[in-house]
């Protein structure tokens, strides 16, 4: 039996309801919240500020540091707080995805700290995190080339689906589930592409196409959040 209907009744190319908000953490230089349905990520940006220890400084460009963490109450079974193998990996890939859009040449010898916290998790946390971080960086007034939008594409059995949830990720029907988180800049460049599972090359092409389309929707949500700032604060 192939996967004909999604668990939560969405269309195959439909994302969950998205929500974005700017300026939720008062003491940060910039902050944002991003929701994919019941996956909630917040991001805070501090800096640019002097980098210590000094041997980490780069005199030709700034340094971007990214820290991703899932809070202990974000999942059903309490997550042990603190960094883990998984969170370190996601911190690193988020850092790479974001460093390609931040104009670090403008801030030599300094560091920009990005903290991503997952308040509630139901798959696609790294995508929500990157979306929130991009918004937070923009609202912090950091010099940027463009925005980045991220979405996870999956392959359940033989169907390409957009924005997986936990139940779909764990699906074992037919060919099983494949999770492909990806991030695109507005101009369509790939900043992040990970793959967990098995997929045929032609299907991957199809998945990237679907991801690009979904990221446009994400971008519109991000844009709306940033444009709605006037009159506030």
């Amino acid at each position, binding site marked *: 039996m192939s996967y004909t209907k999604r668990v939560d009744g969405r269309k195959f190319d439909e994302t969950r309801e998205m929500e974005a908000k700017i300026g939720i953490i008062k003491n940060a230089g910039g902050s944002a919240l991003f929701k994919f349905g019941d996956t909630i990520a917040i991001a805070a940006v501090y800096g640019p500020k002097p980098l210590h220890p000094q041997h980490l400084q780069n*005199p030709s460009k700034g340094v971007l540091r990214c820290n991703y963490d899932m809070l202990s109450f974000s999942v059903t079974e309490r997550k042990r707080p603190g960094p883990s193998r998984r969170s370190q990996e996601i911190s690193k890939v988020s850092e790479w995805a974001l460093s390609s859009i931040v104009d670090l040449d403008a801030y030599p010898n300094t560091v920009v700290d990005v903290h991503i916290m997952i308040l509630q998790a139901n798959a696609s946390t790294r995508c929500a995190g990157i979306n929130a971080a991009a918004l937070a960086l923009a609202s912090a007034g950091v010099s*940027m080339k463009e925005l980045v939008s991220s979405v996870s594409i999956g392959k359940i059995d033989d169907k390409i689906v957009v924005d997986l949830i936990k139940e779909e990720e764990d699906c074992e029907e037919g060919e099983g589930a494949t999770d492909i988180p990806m991030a695109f800049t507005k101009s369509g460049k790939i900043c992040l592409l990970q793959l967990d599972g098995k997929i045929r090359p032609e299907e991957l092409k199809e998945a990237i196409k679907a991801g690009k389309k979904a990221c446009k929707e994400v971008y519109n949500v991000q844009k709306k959040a940033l444009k709605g700032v006037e009159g506030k604060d």
Partner: protein
Amino acid sequence: MIAKEENKEVKEEIEEIEENNEIKEAKREIAIPGEAIVSGKEYLPGDGTRRENEDIVAGRFGLADTSGRLVRIIPLSGIYMPRAGNIIIGIVTDTTFNGWLVDIKAPYNAFLPVSEFSRYIKGDLTEYYDIGDMIACKVFNVKHRSIDLTVKSRGLGKLEKGMIIYINSNKVPRVIGREGSMIKLIKDNTNCEIIVGQNGVVWISGNKIEDELKAKDAIMFVVNKSFIEGLTDKVKEWFDGGKEK
């Protein structure tokens, strides 16, 4: 060059800076990074923008000013980046054998050399400025990674009494107002001396603590209502009508 600068009054310089930063009465829209603001060869990319083929593209988040040929971004947020000529307020964090290190709320440390002190110095540097002192100073030079300060101008130097408040450095032009109108209004209505540093540090000193608090409230009012047009009149009303809103 230094002697020439010495003659200038601080107030004049504040006005000069303010004129450059003054927000013109033009339709401004929020621009987001990577978004094309205007298209056409006749426009020139200014602060916070870059050219991509025909388009002028925003390089940071802020209000896009398209009133002239030069398109630029007026930032709404972001850390203070020092520029030569800025009047700022900083805290002395350390003394060295030939000067002071000053925290100016910027990504880089600033240095005030003894040679830029207002007169000849003999003996222990801490007798003049000690750690923790607030000083009003001017950015003299911004090089690759070091910022040099000077206090060789009238009105600069150690701030002995009064209070310090911190505001968003991007709102400083609003607090000063066109040709210093806003800050003059606040000074006149509260009998306080006020120095607004370009780095968002504001020093208020009055005879009574009530006056200082009133000046603080007025400045916070301006910062919070910075989007409203005709703000100077609003502040006048605010002073006349007590503390409504």
